[in-house]
């Protein structure tokens, strides 16, 4: 069984890098690290990751939720959000994207690992 691939969208490189290290430690493959919604869409088209881990506030014209909306509409790929903002507000805005989860910074990696693992390793990325 191949390792599930994840695209990391985060405009702060070191934070993205820390995430990549953490995700790889969990057994995932990070197929790319981009910092804007536009790049994220291109990268999903190219790499076809199993899911996207997306910061809500990113570079470019669109924010993370809009980018996730495009990605889900065009490729069916689901997104997990990470954010520094209160979760309740985001839940409402991101409801139609049906996110895997919303993880508040500072990230608790064990929560992230459980959530991503449940979805990706069980192979039902599109079912939930």
């Amino acid at each position: 069984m191949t390792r599930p691939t994840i695209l990391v969208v985060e405009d702060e490189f070191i934070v993205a890098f820390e995430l990549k290290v953490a995700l790889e430690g969990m057994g995932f493959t990070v197929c790319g690290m981009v910092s804007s919604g536009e790049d994220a869409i291109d990268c999903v088209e190219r790499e076809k990751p199993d899911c996207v881990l997306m910061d809500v506030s990113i570079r470019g014209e669109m924010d993370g939720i809009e980018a996730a909306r495009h990605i889900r509409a065009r490729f069916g790929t689901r997104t997990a959000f990470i954010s520094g903002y209160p979760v309740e507000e985001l839940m409402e805005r991101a409801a139609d994207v049906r996110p895997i989860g919303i993880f508040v910074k500072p990230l608790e990696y064990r929560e992230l690992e459980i959530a991503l693992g449940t979805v990706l390793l069980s192979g039902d990325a599109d079912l939930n």
Partner: protein
Amino acid sequence: MAIGSLLVAATTIWMLYGAAFEEERLRLVETAQSQARLIEAIARYDRFHYTDHPGGWRAATLSQINEAHQAYEGFGRTGEFTLARLEAESIVFVLGHRHQKVEHPEPVPFDSELAEPMRRALLGQSGTVVGLDYRGERVVAAYEPVAELDLGIVAKIDLAEVQAPFKKAGLAAAGFAVLVVFAGAILFVRVSSPLVTALERRSRDLESTLVALRGSEELFRTTFELAGAGIVQVSLSGRFTRVNKRFCEIVGYTEGELLELRFQDITHPDDLEEDLANVSRIIDGEINSYSLEKRYVCKDNSLVWVSLTVSLVRDGPGDPRYFIAVAEDTTERKNAELAVKSSLAEKEVLLREIHHRVKNNMQVISSLLNLQAKNIEDARLSKMFRESQSRVRAMALIHEILYQSGNLGRIDLGEYVSKLATGLVRMYGTEPDRINLNIGAQDVTLGIDDTVPCGLVINELLSNSLKYAFRDGRMGEIGIDAAPVKNGKIMLVVHDDGVGIPAEVDIRNTETMGMRLVIGLVESQLGGQVDLDRDHGTRFTITFSPTEPDMALKG
């Protein structure tokens, strides 16, 4: 009025006189005729029965009549009968008369003007006349011939007597009228004199009032014209009825142009509603005047801000008449105000941005520490990295809360502590069921200068409790409370009911970094004090004076 009443009185008297005269005349006619018929009757009787009388039956009749006549004075004051015959062209009276103390009055020549009634009687006529009697007195008389004796009989009364009461009445009426006129005149003077005096005084008062008014009007006009503020008089429908020079300058219209306009025409559409609402309230008497800030659209289409004060002028009974509005050009002030506001908003955005940046940078530091720690095998070193990471996060959280909240200057301590604690609990992997976390720090806010040391202190104490207090797997409770106490101080309590700090550990004399940070930050940076109570678990009480007190709490 007097003349009118006099005329009425005269007419009345005249009519009464007419009636009285007619009545008198009829009485005279009746008297004359009845006497004549009586005498004729006696004469006819005597002609048959007194044939033996020395003077003949005529004399017998006459003597009887004379006898009867002597017992009869006459009627009224001047009324009497006369009886006469024609003898040698003279009228010879045969009876004694009332007015001449003689047996018979002197005969009167038949062709004289005297004894006119008798003349007519002797001519065989019957009727009434007003004419001269034997005395030359004007009388009302009824004359009648006495057929049997060839005599004439006259019943007469002096015209003067008939007229007397009416003359009297006329005189009385005239006198009364004069009296009325006189009394009226007196009354008029009596009544009108104080009125005239009062009127004169009133007119003098009015005149002085008028002078004062002219002065006041002059003052008003001068004030109106020379005032530094724009002043207008506006009709109830909103039309300008009077505008001063300053107002013309403010809105850039000439006086003539403004007098053709309503205030609605030059008020900015966005400000009109509020203005009109106030106009309704003032007309309804709900308010006496109102002030507002609004914009006029000038003639050149530029906008001008004015501070407007409007009051309603009512007339005596209280009906609204017109508005007086004073407008002060506040464009410069308003623009400055708007500039300050926008500058403030800009600074807020910048400050928010900076807090965001600082928080991101701290997160990067935290990530770097985390990445670095991955390669460390030594548990002691790894723990030091984790602690450093947690301290950076404690500070980053302050900036995160600041840029997310509406208040860029102050931090809600309750919100901060609850987020900080949640992060630490997750970081130390404590099972949520085992340790109950109680946070009570409602309504305590701190400035950023106090929050950073305070946050670090809480971070250390909470970390200690999480790491050591429940090491043996026991269940328990950690509490963090903050509350304002007297003298504007804040008391912060971090306690747990865990195993407690061993008695031999002196917190002021320990090598541990955490405890040295707590003592140092509280005593040196916050200028407060730390007390430790080891009776039931561990209880740290920290008291300090905030450098930036919460004005809202004090107020």
